């Protein structure tokens, strides 16, 4: 039997798809944030060789289509290295790497805006490299970059939709399934679009709140 | 005739112009003096319609600047030269000057550009006709600004602190052009800090203090001990300006 009409279960399907999308988004954003920040720190400390590698990698990832990156990881890597990768594995790796590349750029600019003299002052006072990172650089860089980071994350949410092409059952893929079944593209794609839109707005709102909190702490309170 | 009647302008909680009356007849050269914040520039901006009036009326040859349809006519009859020049950065000197005659007065391009070159020659910039504002000095830019205002053949020339952004040498070159214009009979309304210059070429001096018009006298009476100088505020102002 073929259900060509919408059923209440379709709402569950959409919710599931949204769940997969958000789950992968959160995971890859977190990994991307950590990895991208680590790359920026490497560049800040001018680690030989690694800095060049990291810069090259970031440039490559930023300036190529995410879809091609996905194909390379999902189709190319298993064929070449004889390993198994599920669509979700490939999605995780690719999106994390892509996010990391953009986080790298934002983090580098944020760290650079802090200025080396502060770091030198802290070192002269005897703080270790790690302490300088944790207490001097990180808080200021974070406050500085929350705005651009929020914009980036909203964009990366849109990018997650591409994982549907390699078969992950995310929101876009559910949309495809529903579309092919009910043949009602306006309803299906409007609903899917609406869900993505609301998720994007939620991220933007949370980002703005976080920015206000962080900036409130660093605001000059007067003598 | 250019007439400002009981002009009132409020910015937030500050009354910048408080019931100012001013009438300018063709051929007059009037200077507006006063300290910063006295409302001098605001008055000019009310006359050319850049600021909306909060009270009173401004008419240029009986065209009311508050009425949108009459504003266009009023603007055709007045030309403004700005303190910061405000030249169009993406156009050459000739194009800057010819733009309004072509678009507003519907003159043919060739005629408007020839006119523009004539004007540039009269201010000594014939060889800089194809230069862009970024390639000109401050004094040269202001001279182009004057030509641009004159290209519309305005009845009244409004000049808003046109030498305040220039160094002494460039100030002198611009002032000499303005003196020439005054001598030729151009009706001009100046806002200026150049007291000596105002004294030399103006027929009338108007003094504004905190938004109110204190005096409006012919030049020689303004600088006479019994006339303008009798007002303590004016005497104080002039002494301070002379000291700088």
């Amino acid at each position, binding site marked *: 039997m073929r259900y060509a009409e919408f059923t209440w279960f379709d709402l569950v399907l959409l919710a599931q798809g949204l769940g997969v999308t958000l789950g992968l988004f959160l995971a890859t954003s977190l990994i991307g944030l950590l990895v991208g920040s680590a790359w920026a720190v490497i560049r800040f400390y001018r680690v030989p060789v690694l800095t060049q590698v990291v810069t090259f990698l970031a*440039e*490559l990832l930023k*300036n*190529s*289509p*995410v*879809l*091609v990156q996905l*194909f*390379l990881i999902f*189709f*190319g890597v298993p*064929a*070449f*290295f*004889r390993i198994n990768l599920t669509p979700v594995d490939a999605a995780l790796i690719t999106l994390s790497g892509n996010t990391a590349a953009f986080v790298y750029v934002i983090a580098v600019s944020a760290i650079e805006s802090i200025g080396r003299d502060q770091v030198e002052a802290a070192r002269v006072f005897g703080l270790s490299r790690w302490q300088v990172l944790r207490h001097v650089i990180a808080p200021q860089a974070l406050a500085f970059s929350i705005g651009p980071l929020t914009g980036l994350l*909203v964009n990366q*949410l*849109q990018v*997650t*939709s*591409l994982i*549907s*092409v390699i078969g992950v059952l995310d929101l*876009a893929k559910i*949309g495809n399934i529903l*579309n092919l079944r009910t043949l009602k*593209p306006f309803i299906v*794609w*409007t609903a*899917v*679009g609406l869900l*993505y*839109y609301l998720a*994007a707005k939620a991220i933007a709102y949370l980002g703005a709140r976080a920015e206000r909190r962080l900036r409130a702490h660093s605001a000059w309170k007067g003598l | 005739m250019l007439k400002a009647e009981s002009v009132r302008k409020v910015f937030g909680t500050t009354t910048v112009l408080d019931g100012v009356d001013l009438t300018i007849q063709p051929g007059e050269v009037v200077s507006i003096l006063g300290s910063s914040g006295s409302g001098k520039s605001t008055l000019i901006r009310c006359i*050319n*319609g*850049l600021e909306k009036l909060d009270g009173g009326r401004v008419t240029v040859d009986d065209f009311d600047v508050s009425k949108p349809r009459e504003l*266009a006519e009023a*603007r055709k009859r*007045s*030309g*403004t030269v*700005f303190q*910061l020049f*405000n*030249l*169009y*950065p*993406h156009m050459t000197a000739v194009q800057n000057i010819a*733009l*309004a005659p072509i*678009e*507003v007065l519907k003159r043919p391009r060739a005629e408007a550009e020839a006119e523009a070159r004539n004007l540039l020659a009269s201010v000594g910039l014939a060889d800089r006709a194809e230069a*862009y504002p*970024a*390639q000109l000095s401050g004094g040269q830019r202001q001279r182009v600004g004057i030509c*641009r*205002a004159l290209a*519309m053949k305005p009845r009244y020339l409004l000049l808003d602190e046109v030498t305040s952004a220039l160094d002494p040498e460039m100030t002198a070159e611009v002032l000499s052009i303005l003196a020439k214009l005054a001598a030729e009979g151009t009706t001009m309304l100046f806002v200026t800090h150049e007291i000596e210059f105002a004294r030399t070429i103006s027929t009338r001096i108007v003094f504004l203090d905190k938004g109110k018009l204190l005096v409006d006298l012919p030049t020689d009476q303004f600088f006479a001990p019994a006339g303008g100088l009798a007002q303590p505020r004016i005497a104080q102002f002039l002494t301070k300006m002379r000291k700088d």
Partner: protein
Amino acid sequence: MRFDLSILLPHLGFLLEGAVLTAQACALALLGSFVLGALVATAITSASAVLRRLAAAYVDVFRNIPFLVQLFFFYYGLPELGIYLDAFATGVLALSIAGGAFSSDVIRAGILAIEPGIIEAAQVSGLSRAKTFTKIVLPIALRTSVRPLGSVFINLILTSSILSTITLNELTGSAKIVASDTFRPFEVYFVLLVAYAVLTWAVSIGIGLLHRRLNRDMMEQVS
């Protein structure tokens, strides 16, 4: 398994055809986004509240919904309305609409960055609002927006890879076919990645040159 690029050689012609299709689609979409972006930026800075809100809504919607979803919306939806466009036309349409939203933001920023005094000079000389906009505001705003518009264009090139999902054989679509023909997806997608990166790098150089040329006359002379 050896990394062997030579297997791509017999397919280079086919890949080149795909590249040409990408170039054509992107060129048309660039034009479309540019015109749409200028119109929307005009609407957003206009005096009419209705126009402003409509324009703002368009930008908001198309910046917060994934391109894939937008593309499917048009690809499956338009035939329902009786509009039958081939994959190429649909792709160009979708790219133009999405690109228009991003470029309108850029042009709007360029408009708002114009010194107000310049507009005032135009106003007092009697220039109508329309003339002020077309002769003064837009020419200046576009000259200063060249670099950020270039970024939008580069983004367009990368996004065009998504057109492969609606059976258009542009560069990515052709590569997919070659990958399955040769059974060497790793080499194919790796080269594809580098090809896109090189292409965007070349475009960004071109943008830099264009920026310098257009703004040559407006740059302050060092005296």
